[in-house]
């Protein structure tokens, strides 16, 4: 066992930290391999930028006004459908719009004077 190996066999915390800092900061590849890998990554980025006209986010933004408009229209339609009847509907007080189903039902089952006779 060499002197260096004997020392690593009993490394203290400071030595471990120093070794880790060296590992985390030293170059991990030789320059030629690193340059080749970086060139491929840059080419990939270039391909992405060229192949897609715009990021999805920008495309989504075009839909945003349409979706918002649709939501507003749907809300307005729902509000109209759910609105309570106006004061002249169904009351029969004004005679402007009598409650027709109820009127028909009454006519159907109310005996006429002739029917009452028999």
């Amino acid at each position: 066992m060499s002197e260096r190996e004997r020392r690593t066999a009993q490394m203290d915390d400071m030595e471990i930290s120093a070794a880790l800092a060296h590992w985390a900061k030293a170059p991990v590849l030789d320059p030629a391999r690193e340059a080749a890998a970086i060139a491929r990554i840059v080419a990939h980025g270039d391909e992405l930028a060229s192949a897609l006209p715009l990021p999805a986010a920008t495309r989504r933004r075009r839909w945003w006004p349409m979706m918002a408009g649709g939501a507003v229209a749907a809300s307005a339609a729902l509000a109209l459908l759910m609105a309570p009847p106006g004061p002249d509907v169904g009351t029969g007080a004004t005679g402007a719009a009598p409650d027709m189903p109820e009127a028909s039902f009454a006519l159907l089952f109310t005996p006429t004077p002739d029917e009452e006779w028999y």
Partner: protein
Amino acid sequence: MLRPAIDSGPDPETLLFLKAQRGDAQAFRQLVGLLAAPSLALAMRTLGNLALAEEAVQEALTKVWREAGRFEEGRSFWPWWRRILLNAALDGRRRMRSVEPLEAAGDPVDPGPSPFEVAAEDELAARVAAAMAALPPRQRAALALFHGEGLSMAEIGEALGTSAKAVEGLLSRGRAALKALLEEDGEAR
């Protein structure tokens, strides 16, 4: 280093990304040029394999380009990018492929000649690199961010999608494992 040393206003990468977010392809190209080297180094330290590291960086870039709209203006690009990159690197399939057996700890991290090998006199550095290759990728990522980037536990937690407390555990287990491997290796020689 994977981030600027001083945080004074939006860094160039954040500004470029904001332009890219608005559809500026040229800004995206410039951003990729700035990100490539430090990101490859971090992925390499995490995965210990050049092909997997390169694949992870490319996948992360694709995700950033496609999901640019999710980035909130006013935030820094770096934490977001780090998280996406490490997610890609620590993706289940890739992580499984990067695991190397303990017996391989004596071999270099990368099959090709590395500066560690070229500088043969730096025996300790080579042994540390070999021992690091035996650690789980998540521990390696935490150690690389802490000792290389100088990030806080909270920042590492953000990058790894975990709590600061969990990061403390990762770092502590990583250090203990490294120490044990080096001591074992020293005694075996």
